[in-house]
């Protein structure tokens, strides 16, 4: 019996479903994601979505628990995440399994740029020099390729489509 496991990973553009035999070693999931992402599985590590630390895979067996969580496979254990806003830059370290939403929360919050509450909900993250807001559930590792461990974002104000001139 195969278990469907969702995972993002280095070299993947979005989350994907992988079929892994129940009872297989967790390294099999790493192998499948690495193959899909085009990098050597031997260098890769496995995370649960949102976790700051990788899973210890020695003796770890694929079972139903894997079906109920999203995962991430990457060669970098930690990323240096830089966020720029109005000529200032802040930096923090996150695992590649961290979501864009988590970084956004940090960047606008009291440990980040302390954005005015009136506009804070409008803020988004974009890749440096880009004006397109990133999907908030995307994992950071999707944007970084080993051996680079740095990720540069701009904090931007999202648009408010309005104006009903032709109604």
């Amino acid at each position, binding site marked *: 019996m195969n278990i469907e496991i*969702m995972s993002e990973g280095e070299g993947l553009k*979005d*989350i*994907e*479903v992988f079929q892994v035999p129940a009872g297989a070693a967790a390294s099999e999931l790493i192998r499948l994601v690495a193959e899909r992402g085009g990098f050597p599985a031997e260098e890769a590590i496995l995370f649960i979505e949102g976790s700051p630390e990788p899973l210890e895979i020695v003796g770890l067996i694929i079972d139903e628990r894997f079906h*109920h*969580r*999203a995962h991430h496979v990457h060669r970098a254990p930690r990323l240096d995440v830089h966020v720029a806003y109005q000529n200032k830059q802040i930096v923090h370290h996150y695992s590649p399994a961290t979501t864009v*939403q988590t970084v*956004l*929360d*940090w*960047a*606008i*919050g*009291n440990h*980040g740029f*302390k*954005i005015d*509450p*009136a*506009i*804070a*909900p*409008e*803020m988004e993250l974009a890749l440096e020099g880009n004006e*397109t*807001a990133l*999907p*908030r*559930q995307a994992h950071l590792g999707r944007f970084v390729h080993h051996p680079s461990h740095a990720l540069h974002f701009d904090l931007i104000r*999202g*648009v*408010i*489509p*309005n*104006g*009903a*001139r*032709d*109604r």
Partner: protein
Amino acid sequence: MSVSAAEAAARADLESARFRAGVLRAHWRLDQISFPLLFITVMALPGRQRRAEFFFRFDITNFPTQAPEVKIWDLLSGGSLPLAERPKGPARVMEAFKEGWPGPGAPSVYRPWERHGINHNNWAATYPHLTWLASRDLTFVLEDLYALINPSTAALALP
């Protein structure tokens, strides 16, 4: 495009990893399919809205060539959700769920990806990252709805 082609495209979206990941994360769930109509619930995180979930009625006729028509819905009454019960928040939330789009009494979501927004106010050119394209999927819409309904926690926590 026939309804069956639209149905096939919608079913492919509903079976995609992107859609299923949202279900896994408890961001949304599919409630009912009656092609060309889909009813999908989008969840609100605790403390973000007065309701825990909001229902949306998708009409996917000619999907994905034509953008879905998406209405904020009241499953009990089978009509639009009253304005007082719609999501609240900053300007972009209030705009998206305002009353009367595309006409009096109509409950479509006021966003560039929605069927009635495609030719509205030059939105397709002004907001290319939010407009509908045949290459987009239902999850693109759901991600936007989820973000509208759930403002950043950090924004809420600031004094």
